[in-house]
């Protein structure tokens, strides 16, 4: 299968390792990956902060770039949720029938990374080796918008050497919320404090997740507090093998 990678704007600049890991895993599983270099951003930050005309421009650009792609893989629940929850409405509001049609056509082809593996490729064992104590943070978008359920956990359970710890109060938001983290910095920090306490209570050394947005926020606090616990994206764990070590 030819899988088109939508890296997402922030992974591209801040977490290229996640992108590399996605490519590694998909190629290991025998698939070809393409990267359409004209891609930029899904528009979530602008849309959620209230800058809707700008978000529509980014929507148009996304559709242009990914026209004709068979399968699109996106290692970020929030970006996929942006598309599923809001693109249809944005297109309808534009009144542009072509835009509406393009959105309808592309959406069924977009998969969040764990969705792609479990639902589309039918895989729960990615052939990984990662001998660490790991807990997993399900992002709010992953939990409520995408209904990922325990797909990520299924994948982690089949990683050799990995011990999975259940995260208490897993349904509580970590406090990132995009621009919320800076517009309401104090509340965001208070929410983050609760989340880090839950993570530390598991005694895991690694906190994983499917969204680097949450992980950047969580990892930032884990680092600031010198906890020794690191935040690592799911894809990077699944990319790890004995050889790679």
């Amino acid at each position, binding site marked *: 299968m030819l899988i088109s990678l939508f*890296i997402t704007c922030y*992974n*591209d*600049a*801040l*977490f*290229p*390792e996640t*992108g*590399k890991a996605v490519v590694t895993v998909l190629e290991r599983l025998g698939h070809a990956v393409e*990267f359409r*270099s*004209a*891609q*930029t951003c899904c528009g979530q*930050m*602008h*849309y*959620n*902060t*209230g*800058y*809707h005309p*700008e978000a529509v*421009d*980014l929507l148009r*650009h996304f559709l242009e770039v990914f026209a004709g792609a068979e399968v699109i893989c996106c290692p970020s629940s929030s970006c996929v949720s942006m598309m599923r*929850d809001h693109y249809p409405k944005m297109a309808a509001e534009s009144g542009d029938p072509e835009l509406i049609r393009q959105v309808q056509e592309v959406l069924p082809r977009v998969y969040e990374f764990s969705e792609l593996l479990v639902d589309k490729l039918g895989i729960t064992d990615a052939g990984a080796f990662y001998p660490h104590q790991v807990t997993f943070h399900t992002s*709010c*978008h992953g939990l*409520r*918008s995408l209904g990922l359920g325990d797909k990520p956990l299924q994948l982690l359970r089949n990683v050799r050497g990995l011990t999975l710890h259940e995260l208490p109060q897993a*349904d*509580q*938001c970590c*406090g*990132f*919320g*995009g*621009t*919320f*983290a*800076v*517009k*309401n*910095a*104090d*509340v*965001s*920090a*208070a*929410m*983050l404090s*609760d989340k880090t306490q839950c993570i530390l209570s598991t005694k895991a050394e690694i906190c994983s997740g499917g969204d680097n947005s949450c992980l*950047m*926020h969580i990892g*930032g*606090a884990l*680092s*600031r507090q010198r906890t020794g616990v690191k935040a690592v994206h799911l894809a990077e764990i699944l990319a790890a093998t004995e050889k790679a070590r």
Partner: protein
Amino acid sequence: MSVRVGEAAEALPFPEAAKKMVANSQLRRNVRHATDVIRNKRGKVVGEKEDWQELRAAGNAIKRHTLRHLDYYLQQFEENCTKAGGHVHWAKDADEANRIIVDILAKRAEKEVIKVKTMTSDETRLNVALEKAGITPVETDLADMIVQLGEDKPSHIVVPALHRNRMEIREIFLKKMGLETLGYEPQDLAGAARTYLRERFLRVTAGISGANYLVAETGSVCVVESEGNGRMCLSLPDILVTLAGVEKVIPRFEDMEVFLQLLPRSATGERMNPYNSIWTGVTPGDGPREFHVVLMDNGRTKVLADEEARDTLDCIRCGACLNACPVYRQTGGHAYGSVYGGPIGAILTPQLQSMEHSQTLPYASSLCGACYEVCPVKINIPEILIHLRAKVVENGDSPFSERLAMKGAAFAMANAGRLGVAHLFARLGQSVFEKDGKLEDLPGLLGGWTAFRDMSALPDQSFRDWWEKREAGR
């Protein structure tokens, strides 16, 4: 028309107010405890109801239908209530509602009035108007009484005094009730409240209430409660005035079969609350001989006119969204600066005021969606929050630096070429703030990030750079 929502127009911006609340450990402990308890209770009784999702769907559908025909149903209610001996008044805004109520009571020279909980009266600041007219309002809901005696403000829709623990309540009672001694157990405190209020229940001849449901078909009113003070205020006085927002009307009596299942489970985690009182106009020999209903707009018709946000008026004031909200959990209700706090407050408060005030409230959310999940009438609060944020931006009310940053980002992300350049500049620019691979003390809005979190510097090579190199090497 002068819409007022309590003191919302003068309130601190949410981030500022929240900062103060977050620093108050006692408050955070109280709020966390209270919301955990109700959330768990709610989870249990909702979990056992197999038709919960069907009830939610029906609740949403009934409310939407009613709003679509609001003029018809309000008139039908007015007709039937009047036929049964009630007097129906219409108030454009808070001031008019207060004036009507004060006039009704002043005409009868009432000096004291017992009140059963109604947030609508907090919205209009009715108590201030009553006191100005020489009429003493006596709050009879235990929590509202705690708030009134403590000269405080309510912080939750259903449990307004949840920010107080028993020690604080005991202090308030000792002082304001003039008691010599008072025990420390909740039972003792409730006992003190009972004695203090009973004397008034049996003596005061005027009562004020809100309404949970106004039934158009029959002209009936329904009040949902737990303590019994509602029953007291509704049936013992000689005159009763009920203040209700126009969105409280429902088409038929039987529609309450849906709401009386949704509300108690969502609000207090019970299968049914202790008391529901349903009355129709005036009944000779039983209860008030004079009964008035004041139907109030105070900005609701503005919300009605905005189709995308109209669902805000579906709200049945259960408070479940407050209990589920991870932001509310950290700040409590006072941070919202409005009688309506939490997720519903964040969308209702600014809209009632035509977005002229409380513009920081739509941003008081991480859009986690927990509120939508628990809302018994399926209000898509996150979507409405985003809709209101777009309004704030459209109205030109967002901070200049933010507008600049957003436009800049949109410009940079218009195509990959520009994005590549932006990466370059970012990598160059960050060197000023970089130390040992981390970025410290970022300026402006981004300072809020680095104040609490370490941030790694941008990697030297973006993903697209790496891909390009890899492809070139093949």
